[in-house]
């Protein structure tokens, strides 16, 4: 009996590559992404008179622009993926970006701090406040939804206090994080924010795969009590995850600041919606314990491509919000029905 059983285990372990691919948890969303790219490409191709050189969607220029547009959202989404895998949520990130970005701009403008110094300041501020929030959430077990909503309002107030509601321009300084790029082909440029996003995604993927931290985050999100009994200091773990998320928020804020060239008090307003939407579309469960980094990357790109496609096809920008909303609902429904189907098959 045990022999038969172990053979069975061994057989299942060596699944074919193709089987593994379609069973992968990101398979559905990846397929949707490819499908949308193909559809948009053909619509664009036909509407530009079937001349390939006139089609804009898959041109190098457009691709580099889409990538640039999603990069900052993407960096934030990576951090929030960690928080959401743990079963928490953070609504404060949009206004935190406004606060951190404008404060850094203020330091550069009024105190003549250098680029590196304001990056350091951004990291310190952002990590400090995320740790503070993480401390409250992990020690009291209060809902992160409501605590982060409170912090959101606090950051909003801070932002207006720092800026008086006006932009703080950088006067042409601090360009290297957002405005530089590497020219790969005559039309395709790899912008620095995109490069940062790609590097962070790979780094986080490696961390999730090869460290205890990466494994434990699923355990805490999957069953907090069992995680505690399995020797995880859940309180400190949560604190640490919020700290790391703060680091990602700092990088995103500074990149956004550099890209815009000005500390706009509304620079991150509403970003939390885009970010959480991308993470959810990427398959991370709000209840925690389920999802992964590549899912988030797919979600970010998918949302970016949809807005871009609607732009290119000349759709009224007001429809974009509606499309985005429908996509979020649709992707959650797909996730729901595929899990229902799986459960039915198994039992």
């Amino acid at each position, binding site marked *: 009996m045990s022999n038969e059983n172990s053979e069975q285990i061994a057989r*299942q*372990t060596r699944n074919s590559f193709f089987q593994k691919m379609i069973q992968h948890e990101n398979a559905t969303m990846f397929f949707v992404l490819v499908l949308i790219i193909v559809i948009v490409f053909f619509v664009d191709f036909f509407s530009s008179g079937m001349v390939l050189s006139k089609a804009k969607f898959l041109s190098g220029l457009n691709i580099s622009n889409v990538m640039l547009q999603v990069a900052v959202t993407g960096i934030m989404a990576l951090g929030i993926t960690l928080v959401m895998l743990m079963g928490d949520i953070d609504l404060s990130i949009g206004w935190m970006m406004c606060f951190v970005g404008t404060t850094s701009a203020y330091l550069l403008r009024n105190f003549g701090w250098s680029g590196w110094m304001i990056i350091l300041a951004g990291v310190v501020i952002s990590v400090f406040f995320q740790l503070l929030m993480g401390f409250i959430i992990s020690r009291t077990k209060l809902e992160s939804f409501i605590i982060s909503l409170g912090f959101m309002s606090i950051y909003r107030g801070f932002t207006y206090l720092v800026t008086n509601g006006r932009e703080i321009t950088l006067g042409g300084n601090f360009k290297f994080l957002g405005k530089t790029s590497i020219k790969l082909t005559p039309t395709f440029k790899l912008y620095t924010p995109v490069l940062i996003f790609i590097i962070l995604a790979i780094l986080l993927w490696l961390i999730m795969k090869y460290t205890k931290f990466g*494994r434990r985050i*699923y355990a805490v999100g999957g069953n907090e009590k069992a995680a505690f*009994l399995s020797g995880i200091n859940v309180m400190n773990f949560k604190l640490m995850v919020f700290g790391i998320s703060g680091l990602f928020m700092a990088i995103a804020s500074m990149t956004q600041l550099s890209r815009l060239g000005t500390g706009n008090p509304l620079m991150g307003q509403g970003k939390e919606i885009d970010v959480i939407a991308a993470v959810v579309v990427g398959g991370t469960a709000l209840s925690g314990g389920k999802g992964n980094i590549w899912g988030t990357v797919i979600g970010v790109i998918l949302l970016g491509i949809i807005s871009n496609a609607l732009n290119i096809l000349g759709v009224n920008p007001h429809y974009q919000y509606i499309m985005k909303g429908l996509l979020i609902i649709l992707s959650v429904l797909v996730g729901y029905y595929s899990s229902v189907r799986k459960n039915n098959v198994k039992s």
Partner: protein
Amino acid sequence: MKNNLILEMKGIQKAFPGVKVFDNFNFDLIKGEVHCICGENGAGKSTLIKMLSGAYLPDKGTIALDEEVILNNTPRLAMGKGIQTIYQEHNLYPLLNVVNNLFAGNEMTNGILLDSKGMIDKTLEILDFLHSEISPFDIVGDLGSGAQKTVEIARALIQKSKILILDEPTSSFSKKEIDFLLNIIKKLSKEGLSIIYISHHLDEVFVIADRVTVIRDGEKVNTYLIEDLDEHKLINDMVGRDVSSFYKRDEAEISDVFYKADNISGNGVTDVSLFVRKGELLGISGMVGSGRTELAELLFGVKEMNQGEIQINGKEVNIDTPLDAIANRMCFITEDRQSTGLFLDHSLVRNTVIASYAKSTSPFVLPSDDVKISEKYIRQMNVITPSVFQKAMYLSGGNQQKVVLAKWFATDCDLFIFDEPTRGIDVGAKEEIYKIMTELLRKGKSIIMISSDMPELIAMSDRVLVMRNGRIVVTIEKSEINEENILQHSIGGSE
């Protein structure tokens, strides 16, 4: 006599997957009597109540109320017919006041408006009848345990009541509250209400019962008039299984003391001292609510210890968190594997390796190593699964329990604390788990096993500690371990 019966159960049969609980069970209740039901943990008392209250349907047999057979019983139907059940846990709306609790879902109305005055008057009348000092406007959550139980009784009385079923109503009550409740019950039965009363506490039984029915493994042993019964007879009836049917375990060599706790208190446990040797299985017995699980939580650092000292291998250690416990080579197989043992939505790989991470200092892991470790222990435990990548939720109860064991085996620990190791597991898997435990003992590991399953406790234990009200009342040595002895101390007979 026959005309006096308000309730009659005939030829009741009820089975759950893998276990037959009731087989041809008969029971009757006379109008206006207090009928106590006694039996060990798992004798079938709860199942019996649930069939009366409509939560379960019997597979066979009839339940007749006033000579009218109740078909397709549901909780709503049973309540409508006047069978009111008060369960062990409070079943109230803690944020509402007494009046709103009494009439929730059953409001008195004038046309479409609520008849507040009518409801308040009725509440006052009933509270007065019960001689209770509760105000109709008290918020229920602020009341003590005893007062909340009174509110539940009042709620049952407001509805049409012929039969009142009380399941362990006095757990976590003070002496005064118990006396108050018993008085109410006597009064109600004098008013003609028939009462089924379930309790572990023999002293309560002898105070209020008119008749007593003893059940054991889903069979009625006997029904007595209270005058014909004494404690000895009662306990004798509750025990008395055929010992030859018990699992037979191989002996293991017992050597030095591995773990020792001195006068520990906290988490509802008072002044407990215990030790367990290498190769020894220490059984912990006691009725539900006696503080057994609370003790295990204390030992494993899940809950804070207020005082006391713990020694492992003769050295004093601090165990403040489960992490400390794991570092000291302990593990804890909890009672409720689904909510505290497993990550149901995760693969067996993740489930098996997670606790072993606590043992190494390097922050890195290799996914391929995880799979190897997982396969090794999943195979060793003989878990039936198509692959280690299967989600834990798709396994049967017995296999899930083996996955929890695999998780702890991967940490290579020396002291295993089992809380109800075989609850909800079929007979075959049970034996496998006993074999695994025996093998552990043979290797010189120590086991502390909490169990409500009497045959298991007797078959497996080298020593048994009996707990009551958060304290250890007695240590029973191997030669003295038998059902009668354990039960007598658990329910506090003859002292």
